[in-house]
């Protein structure tokens, strides 16, 4: 009976160690920290914050220095 109880404690201890190891491992970053902020993943933001893409697709429009009024 005692040996069973000791076995159960040992098993619980091992399980805890495995879980702890798992948690610690899981907390470790897989990659280098990314300083860039993450914004809502909408199609608007994806495109309008992509300078290179906008340079390809943005429509040119006539602009003037000032309106000549006032």
């Amino acid at each position, binding site marked *: 009976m005692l040996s069973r109880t000791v076995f159960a404690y040992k098993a619980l201890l091992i399980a805890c160690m495995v879980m702890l190891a798992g948690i610690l491992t899981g907390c470790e970053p897989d990659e280098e920290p990314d300083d860039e902020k993450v914004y809502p993943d909408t199609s608007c933001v994806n*495109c309008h914050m992509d300078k290179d893409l906008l340079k390809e697709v943005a429509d040119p429009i006539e602009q003037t220095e000032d309106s000549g009024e006032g």
Partner: protein
Amino acid sequence: MTPLEPWERVYIKDSFMDSLHGFIDCGWCHEGNESGADKDEAHEDLVHYPSEEARFYCAPCHEEQAQHYRESIHTTQEGYYERFELRSGYDLRSEGYEHALEEFEGECGKCHASCGQCHVTRPVTVGSGLNWAHEFKKTPDLKTNCTACHGSRVGEEYTGGHEGLKTDVHYIPGAKRCEFCHSAHEMHGGDGTVLTYRFDENNSEAPRCETCHSYAQESNSYHQQHWAGTSGVTLSCQVCHSQNYKNCNGCHVGGDGITGSSYLTFEIGRNYLKGNARYQDYDYITVRHIPIAPNTYEPWGIADLPNFENSEPTWKMTIPHNIQRWTPQTQVAEGAGCSTACHNSQYYLRASDIALYENANYNEDTGETGYGYSGLTRELQANKDVIIP
């Protein structure tokens, strides 16, 4: 003002996403189709300028501003319509003038300003585009917002853009800007009073020099005589303290623009607004020639303005934005009186000046005239209350 590259006009940066407006879903203001597979699909039913419908898109958070803004002259451009009506004799917005109204709104009417054109983008009249990568600014930028529209006269005068003339003494780049005198309350339509134009006597929000300078009313004999009025003749502040300013001739719709000439001059006229509750306290004011002509609207099929000479002057009250303490009017020889510079001087707007400047080919460098002007009689009549005999 440096034009924006096409991509810059629609580019959004972190600064916007981190701002309060950046937390609002794009579609809440711009509609469109956020799940669209490509640009065309995503831009279906897109609202480019939400604040054109401020009562829908801005009012939920900015109720007071959105309400008053609808009645401000920046939005209504009521002055444009009223001046047209006075000179033509009919209201463009009445039945039977749909074609003219369409033309008017397409050309003159596009100068109106929405919330966004001051606080988010550049004005549409200069091509628009996001001013600060979509970040909203409480105070519009002097160069890319205010003088983008008010540039050729106010902007150049204020910032010293005319060769040989000084900046306005109030202009300190990066410090004192338009809002120093023109409050948000004024820009947003004040207390909601509907104004007919900027010199409307009910325009209680219009800046007054006296607000800051009232202490100087008795500071010298000139102020005592012409400000406090001990001489019996009062002058607007600009009569003594502004420099030459820009005047134009012959504006025509339909894309031609100014077909006459532009010239720098300084003219003192009689205050034709005397009796107007807000401007009645001056006998003489600075006047600027505006480029209206009897045939300004000819390309729209409006060959003539029948009330041209019996409605509004063409040399109109002006508030030049190039104030200096010492000007040719205030600098007199040691021991001399002000009369040596001003009284009966070249600065008075005379009938002969009307003839000189009204010539569409007037050359400010050479002073050459001689091309004649068929509308001179009408110009003289239109300015009969302004000309100093």
